[in-house]
């Protein structure tokens, strides 16, 4: 594990293929090759050589590009698995995921749920895959960029002949005169080459910064991943859903009870052929109903003072706002968007106390379905008592009336009707479209008269302090791509040996363009432009 001293006197790290300074081939198996592999300038990727401790072993694992590619492929496959069935956050609310997946998708849905694919993108193993790609990026980059930087910094003007001979572009010409050399120099300068000279030899080089492009790109990706990671830090990212009925005031989730929102009205508008611009007419005939506007009129409140949960709140009105699709209400760093709605949820029911024989109505009561009164006085000795209430009525397994939820989807009541004729009262069970009487011969009934409904709006509360980091990472990423893609690192060596001029050229990409440029550079110097040594490269 010792460093390798080259015959030129430069000391290279162990594992170096080409001397960092003169380019002499240090590894024997490279000696037999006609052309050199110039990737990373033949520098020592240390991961390839040190394999002693557990730290080195972990390092080497992540340093492998092969491992990196496998990680990316596995992540792609895993990501696609998550799209086969909807993720848990997209299934209807108030359903049990375990049952929903099996009901909807059979055995496959059950398996999908059992494998936890319903929350795939936040599962520990998926995050671990993404994190491994990040680690692989960091280590791969570090392991390559540092030796490459060293090799490019230490390169000297006069390269070893073995190095030059094995370049793709290589040529030998008669020794040029002074004039020819200065002409060459001028031509190179005109093409923006930087020139270093030693003992009459030349190293002309341009656009070295292009070699850092991939690493700048990786830095951008890492910043992007850091941004994604910061979403998990409390307070950085909020994405909550709020269902709110007309007239209701609720705490805005994610704001720690600081802000409250009241839904004054939810409006759903459709395009109307008569009222709207007639250019829409044909489209409306074809499509039928077309939504025009979804809007929640809300009032924003801020909580004042410290109250204990359950106490009545001291709310200060901040402003009125209209929330429409893509026109959120903004407070501090929060934005509240219109995302969903439910029209005509039952809110009040009107029922009349009616004489069954004469049809005479004594009076009408209005029952608030969220919090009904228990006694309704109809004057003159008539009153109705609510004995029992089931907002979302069904019969349970023992055929007893029960409720499925607190939402009045299917309200049912037990009323006791007290009248001067029947001062002890008559009991009646009233549900939508059915009435059951206890003894079967009541003289009064509760007749359905009508309902009042309310709309419910769903709002999304969003806060994202990581957005600028993601944007910044993306920008760096693009700079890296551009830096590596639109410039090429080009080098030309000219070495004077025994009355001959040995020339060699190297570029990291676009060999055709480089050859064209060199032809121009050598024009009028009397020297031959270095020639293509790669068989397949001769055509182009």
């Amino acid at each position, binding site marked *: 594990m010792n460093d390798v001293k080259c015959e030129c006197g430069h000391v290279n790290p162990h594992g170096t293929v080409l001397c960092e300074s003169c380019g002499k081939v240090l590894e024997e198996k490279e000696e037999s090759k006609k052309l050199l592999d110039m990737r990373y300038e033949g520098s020592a990727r240390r991961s390839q050589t040190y394999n002693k401790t557990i730290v080195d072993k*972990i390092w080497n694992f992540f340093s492998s590009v092969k491992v990196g590619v496998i990680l990316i492929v596995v992540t792609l496959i895993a990501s696609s698995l998550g799209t086969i069935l909807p993720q848990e956050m997209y299934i209807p609310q108030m359903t049990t995921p375990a049952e929903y997946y099996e009901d909807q998708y059979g055995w496959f849905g059950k398996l999908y749920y059992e494998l936890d694919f319903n929350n795939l993108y936040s599962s520990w193993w998926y*995050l671990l895959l993404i*994190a491994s790609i990040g680690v692989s990026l960091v280590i791969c980059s570090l392991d390559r960029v540092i030796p490459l930087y060293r090799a490019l910094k230490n390169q000297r003007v006069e390269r070893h002949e073995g190095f030059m001979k094995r370049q793709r572009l290589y040529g030998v010409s008669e020794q040029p005169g002074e004039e020819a050399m200065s002409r060459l120099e001028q031509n190179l300068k005109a093409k923006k080459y930087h020139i270093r000279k030693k003992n009459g030899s030349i190293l002309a080089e341009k656009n070295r910064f292009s070699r850092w492009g991939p690493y700048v790109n990786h830095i951008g990706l890492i910043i992007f991943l850091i941004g994604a990671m910061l979403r998990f830090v409390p307070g950085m990212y909020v994405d909550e859903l709020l269902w709110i009925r007309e007239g209701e005031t609720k705490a805005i989730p994610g704001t720690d*009870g600081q802000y409250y929102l009241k839904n004054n009205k939810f409006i759903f508008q459709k395009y109307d052929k008569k009222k709207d611009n007639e250019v829409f007419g044909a489209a409306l005939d074809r499509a039928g109903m077309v939504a025009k506007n979804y809007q929640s009129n809300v009032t924003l409140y801020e909580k004042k003072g410290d109250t204990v*949960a359950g106490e009545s709140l001291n709310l200060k009105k901040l402003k009125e706002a209209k929330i429409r699709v893509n026109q959120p209400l903004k407070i501090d760093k929060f934005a509240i968007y219109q995302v969903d709605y439910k029209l005509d949820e039952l809110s009040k029911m009107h029922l009349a106390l009616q004489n069954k024989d004469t049809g005479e109505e004594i009076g009408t009561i209005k029952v608030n379905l969220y919090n009904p009164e228990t006694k309704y006085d109809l004057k003159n000795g008539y009153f109705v008592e609510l004995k029992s*209430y*089931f907002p*979302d009525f069904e019969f349970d397994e023992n055929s007893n009336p029960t409720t499925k939820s*607190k939402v009045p989807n299917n309200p049912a009541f037990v009323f006791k009707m007290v009248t001067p004729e029947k001062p002890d009262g008559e009991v009646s069970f009233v549900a939508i479209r059915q009435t059951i009487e206890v003894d079967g011969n009541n003289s009064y009934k509760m007749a359905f008269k009508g309902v009042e409904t309310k709309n419910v709006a769903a709002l999304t509360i969003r806060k994202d302090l990581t957005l600028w980091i993601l944007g910044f990472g993306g920008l760096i990423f693009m700079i890296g791509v551009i830096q590596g893609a639109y410039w090429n690192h080009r080098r030309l060596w000219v070495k004077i040996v025994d009355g001959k001029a040995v020339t060699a050229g190297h570029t990291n990409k676009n060999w055709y363009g480089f050859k064209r440029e060199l032809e121009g550079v050598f024009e009028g110097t009397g020297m031959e432009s270095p020639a293509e040594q790669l068989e397949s490269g001769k055509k182009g």
Partner: protein
Amino acid sequence: MKKKRLVVRTIILLVLAAAVGYTLYANLTKDEVNKVEIGKQAPNFVLVDMEGKKHKLSDYKGQGVFLNFWATWCGPCEREMPYIDNQYKQYKDQGVKVLTVDVGESKIAVDKFIERHHLTFPVMIDKDGQVQTAYGINPLPYTFLIDKDGKVVRSYKGELTEETIKSFMEEIKP
């Protein structure tokens, strides 16, 4: 030279491992963020029970509090209620307070439920959901055990058996 490299590699790997570890930890605990933490002070609340008596959690320092969230439409809640009531009778003179919170149904629905199951412990309705938000309730039933210092010692999601309730009572008995 080699030693320095080992140190540098170790540091880089540790930093990466810490970042990954934190992300995983934060992801797994994100549902409980801002909610009740075991070992921390339980969020205070004030609610009025069905008989009009005001209950403030902080007034019950020195007693253990068995706090249960429920609804009339929740089957498991309905099944565990009689057990809670039995144990309430056993432990009410031993310094354990039972407080149960309905998640905001109508008064009549709750009254009928109490009547049907002959419940004797205090029942409160969290009308505007403030207490549920403070405790991060989802799904039902949800039970919290609070010790005599007002600290949460345990939270339990789901239906309780009578033995479990008994062992919970023992746990918070001062």
